[in-house]
Every structure is written in C-alpha cells, then in structure tokens.
C-alpha cells in the first residue's frame, strides 16, 4: 500500500503489517495492556517506515484495539467500575508526572533498569522464583 505523508511517498508492507497488527491486538487485548511498544518496532522494522510516520498513526491503530477490547471486556463482565474509578485518576496523575521526570533522567539508563525489572517480573510469573 502506498501512503503519502507530508509530501513524501512510502510503501507500507501490509503482508507483514496486517498479520502483525492483528496478533499484537489479540495478545494485548487478552492481557489488557496497550500494544504500543510492540506496534512501533513492527512498523519501524517490519514495515520499514520512518519514526515520524509511525508516532501518530500507530496510536490511531492501537486506539481501535483498545476501544474494541474495552467493549468486549465490558460485555463479558470483566470491567469493574469502582476499580476503574480508583485507577483512572492514578493513571492520569502518572501520565502528568511521567514526562516531567523523564526530562531529568537518562533514557538509556531508565530503559536498562526497566529491562531488568521486566525480566524479574517475567521470571516471577513463570514461577522460576
């Protein structure tokens, strides 16, 4: 598929993009997280698109998934309103504080710490320790 973005033309490989996006959507709606960290590499590496095309468009694509996932979870009775009302202000507060702190930190170090944290969490989920 050819797309035009700010006067430049790109070829988007949908043979990778569509199955990839579909799979990411299944997994992310199944576990209830946003698919951003997977969609961006998919579009950058798999579809060979430059970052400035990806940032906005990936968000739009993920929004479809979040919206559908939300409705479906609601339909299955997995949505707890009170729990949501407690967490939602927390999420907004975090979304507000995050960028403020981010400016003061070295992103590479933050990412490496996050890597370690994610690995520990993963091993705990897998029952390794």
């Amino acid at each position, binding site marked *: 598929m050819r797309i035009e973005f700010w006067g430049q033309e790109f070829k988007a490989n949908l043979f990778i993009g569509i199955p990839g996006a579909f799979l990411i959507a299944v997994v992310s709606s199944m576990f209830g997280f*946003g698919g951003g960290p997977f969609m961006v590499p998919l579009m950058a590496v798999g579809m060979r698109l430059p970052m400035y095309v990806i940032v906005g*468009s990936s968000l739009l694509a993920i929004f479809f998934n979040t919206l559908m996932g939300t409705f479906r979870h609601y339909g299955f009775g997995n949505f707890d309103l009170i729990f949501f009302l407690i967490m939602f202000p927390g999420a907004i507060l975090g979304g507000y504080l995050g960028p403020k702190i981010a400016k003061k930190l070295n992103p590479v170090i933050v990412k490496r710490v996050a890597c370690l944290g994610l690995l520990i969490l993963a091993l705990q989920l897998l029952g390794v320790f």
Partner: protein
Amino acid sequence: MKNFLKFLTVLMILSVFSVTVYSQTSTEKKDSEPPKEASPADKIIVQVDKNQLSGGGKIIITGKAPAGRDVYIEVWSEKTVRAARLDADPDPKTGKRPYIFYMTDEMPGFYRLILPEKYKSILEEEKAKGKKWSVSEIIKKSGADAVYGYPAKIKIDRYQTTLWESIIGSRGTKLEPMDEKENKRRSMQLLKARFRTVGNVFSSNLKIEEDGTFKASVELPENAAPGKYFVVAKVDKDLKSEPLVVQNDISFPSVYLPNAGRTVNVLWPFLLTAAITTFGVLMGAGGGFILNPILVMLGLPHTVVAGTVMPTVLFSQGTGIYNYSRINFISLKLGITLGIAMLVGGFIGPKLTELITLEQYKFLFGWVLIILAALMFWQTTPKYLEKNKKEQAILKEFKKRAEEAAKKKAEGGK
C-alpha cells in the same frame, strides 16, 4: 494546566461519590436462606461469638451435635462473584477433549468448609500435590460428600464451545442445565478455579469433644466482601443447624469491588497506578505491562484486571490522537488499515482471557514480558541509539513544520 487540574478534581469527587453511593446500597441487599426445621430429637446447636465484624476478623463457632458424629461447618458470603472454567481435559476413555465452558455468577465471594481436626492429614496430602489438588478428592476422603451443600446448588451455565467459536468471540452453544449430581461435581472444579488454593476452601480446625460439643474458628480476611456471612453446622444431609448470620461491614476508605469480589483500600490501587504509570511513561511503554502482573499476583482475578486496566488508557490515547491530528500528523490511510486488523484482534482477545486459566495467563504474560524486555534492551544498543538519534531529529523537524502549518491554517481561518 488549570483546566486539567479542575478536571482531575471533578473526577476524584465523582469517583468518591459513586463509591459511597455503592457501599450504601450494597449493604441493603437482602438474600438470606429460609431456615429449615430440624427434627427436635437430634438437633445441632450452634452459636458464634459475634454477629458483627468490621473489615474482617475472626469468628469463633461453638455448638453441640449428637455425640460421636462428625461435624462439618460451612461458611459462605451472600456476595457472589463469577467463576469460570474451560474443560479441555481429554476424556480418559475416548481421548477426546470436551471443550465445554462452565460459568457461574453465583459463586460466593467467600467460602470455607471446616472439617474435623482428624482430617488434617488429607488437607496436607492435597496441598503437597501443588497445582493438581482436587476439591472433590478432599470432600470424598473426609466424608464430607453429604454435607457439601451451598456451592453444589449454584446455577452453573455451560456452553459447548469450539475453536472456531472462540475465534469469532462467541461463548458457544448453551447446553441444557445439568442434573443435581453433575452440577455438584462441576461446582467443585469452579471452587478451585476461583479460590486457587486448598487453604482458601478448606480448613480443619474443628475440635469435637466426646460429648458432641465442638469448637472451630474462621478468619474473614481484611479484603473479604461486606454483607452477610452464613454459618451452618452439619452432620449429614438432613441433620444441620439453622444458618447463623454474621454481618461484615466495611467503611471508607475501604471499598468493595463487586466484579473482583474483594475489598480494597482505595489508596493503594490509586498510588500503585500513579507510580507505575509514571514509570511506564519513563520507559516508553504503557503501565499495563507492569501493573497487570502485579495486580494478578496480589490476587485479583486476571479477567477483571485485563478488563479494567485496558479502559484506563483510552483517555490518554484519545488525547494523543487529538494532539497529533490537530497538526495533521497522522496518516489516516495507514492508521485505519492497521486499525481494522487490530479491531478484529481486539474482538478475539478478551474472549481468550475468559477461557484461559490463571496459570496460563501467568505463563503467557511471562513470555510477553521477556519479549518486551528484549525489545527494550535492543533499544539501548549503541547501533539503535545512533539510528534513533537521526530519526528523532527528523521527527522533530517534521513536527515543527506540521505545527507551523497548523498555526498558519488557524490564523488564516480567522
């Protein structure tokens, strides 16, 4: 900025308001069992040391039953939760997998079957089996088959599902209701699916003296649901005491999460979400990756965690899209094409959440996190950083242009 703060305050007030309204109405619900007449000849007398609890606590149960008989005590809450299980174990005779999905919305939020002390070893034995323990095995071995009462009668729906039906997101064809015996058998499996461990369903602290007097205790955890709790002592199917009622009250800042089936202090999910979202922003991934496993490990049902965390990002995604679209920085063609693929995926995913067990959820999530960690590590390699630096510079340049264009357009519009 001011508007944002205003919005935040309104939101907080709204949430607090709705929480208090809920906790008021929920205590008014009434759903008690009509007491049954026992024959006066051999009666069981039972009493509890207190009828009121506040935020959980210990109840001492004492009483007297005919001498020489085994006594069992059932305790359950009036508040109910959902329990579900997909039966995909191969049939031992035919080897075929049944793929029947069992679901109930009437599982008590709290259930405890207290066995006489002498059966302690049976519980230990089952605990030693790890994840393979079985409710029915304990009930059979401890002679509790006739007294296992309340959960046996809950309404369980079952659906014949197929791989294809799961894929298109249907629960499958609803089957005829089960007979009493089958319902009882399935209720035991659902008990395990809901309560996970032996200790959450059974205890064996019931002391019986020679003259038939007995004493036991049950501990309602701090996170137990508010409302009525019923206590019944039984010797067999017909010989049982009238249900005693213990009221458990909770007060703000503790609130009851009806779908998750537990009481929490509002403060900790709020702080946890705020802290993890902040960290999520720093590492460039949503907070859900960390928040969900933690909530699941804290004991919330994985279905409710997935279904409730997901909508929290709708708002931030919406603002992001608005900001990008304002400066015309979204390729609609690309976003919608991939969006449709994701729409289909988002239709299927939540169905799978319901079908998988907690163990499968943890296992798969573990691997997802390992992949994510690998991706993030790759993003800190020097080669990637160098490439990213260039890309970010181009991104900035294009964004600047787009912002200027949008500004011009806005000014031209005036």
